[in-house]
């Protein structure tokens, strides 16, 4: 059991670093054991160093940096133990335009391996979809669904 955990731990750590560098354009990310002497029980924590900044606990990052670091950690977990799909509900809300582009590059790699479903208000994200689902409430309180072409989004959806 310990050997399996350690093996997975090392892989998640490597992938966290890989996806963090991809999203931040550099820097270092690390999964740390809180107590090296006790690998069977110890909790883990995440540390990150955006390019040119100092290393700190991920909770001290800015709002947008935290969202990106979470995405890197999530995808690292996926790469070790793939689930058939990933659903993100407005995961891109805190990101600026440049980071949305990097996020979408990562998603375009991920979608080749698993099914991805993104709920979003961001136009750039919508433009990447293979299928675009519009949800409306023509009758207040009752949801309906329409299938959309990317071009139709603005007229039909009153977004």
């Amino acid at each position, binding site marked *: 059991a310990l050997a399996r955990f350690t093996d997975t731990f090392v892989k998640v750590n490597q992938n966290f670093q890989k996806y963090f560098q991809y999203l931040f354009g550099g820097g270092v990310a690390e999964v740390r054991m809180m107590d090296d002497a006790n690998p069977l029980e110890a909790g883990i924590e995440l540390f990150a160093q955006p390019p040119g900044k100092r290393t700190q606990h991920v909770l001290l990052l800015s709002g947008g940096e935290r969202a990106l670091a979470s995405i890197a950690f999530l995808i690292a977990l996926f790469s070790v*133990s793939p689930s058939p799909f990933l659903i993100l509900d407005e995961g891109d809300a805190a990101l600026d335009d440049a980071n949305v582009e990097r996020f979408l590059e990562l998603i375009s790699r991920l979608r080749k391996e698993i099914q991805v479903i993104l*709920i*979003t208000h961001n136009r750039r994200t919508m433009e990447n*979809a293979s299928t675009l689902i519009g*949800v409306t409430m023509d009758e207040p309180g009752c949801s309906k669904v329409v299938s959309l072409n990317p071009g139709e989004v603005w007229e039909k959806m009153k977004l």
Partner: protein
Amino acid sequence: THISEIVVNGFKSFAMRTAVKLHEDLTCVVGPNGCGKSNICDAIQWVLGEQSPSHVRSQNMAEVIFAGTAKRKAYGLAEVTLVLNAPKATGSEKEKLAITRRVVPTGESTYLVNDKTVRLRDLLDLLNSAGLNISSYSIIGQGRIESVLTMRPAEKRLLIEESA
């Protein structure tokens, strides 16, 4: 394996039977505030056997049933069906797997696989054996993107153990 469609009927704001067809690579769900996008996310989490009402933004399980609007009365049943394209255990053809969950106002749920009633435990076994390892981080709700960062160290460890 992927979700080919999800059919919601009487679940939260979906008063009318609605089928949502999904693409096997990237599907985006868009729409104004309050129109029902996150309710679709809740429906997928719920049909896969979610037992905690707070994980589907409710105070109890009966609250997922359509509760009425200014013009419509509340319903007595909510039903969600998830249609999965899973590779057959025996070979390369795809088989359709339809998972259904229903709930009545008492809060009691029933589960069905391809229209046959099963226990929750059977459903979870089936999902696992069909390689549908749906982990706790497959569905990230609105505002919860940072939840993996704010977990306590012991909980983060569980995430790694889960994926081992």
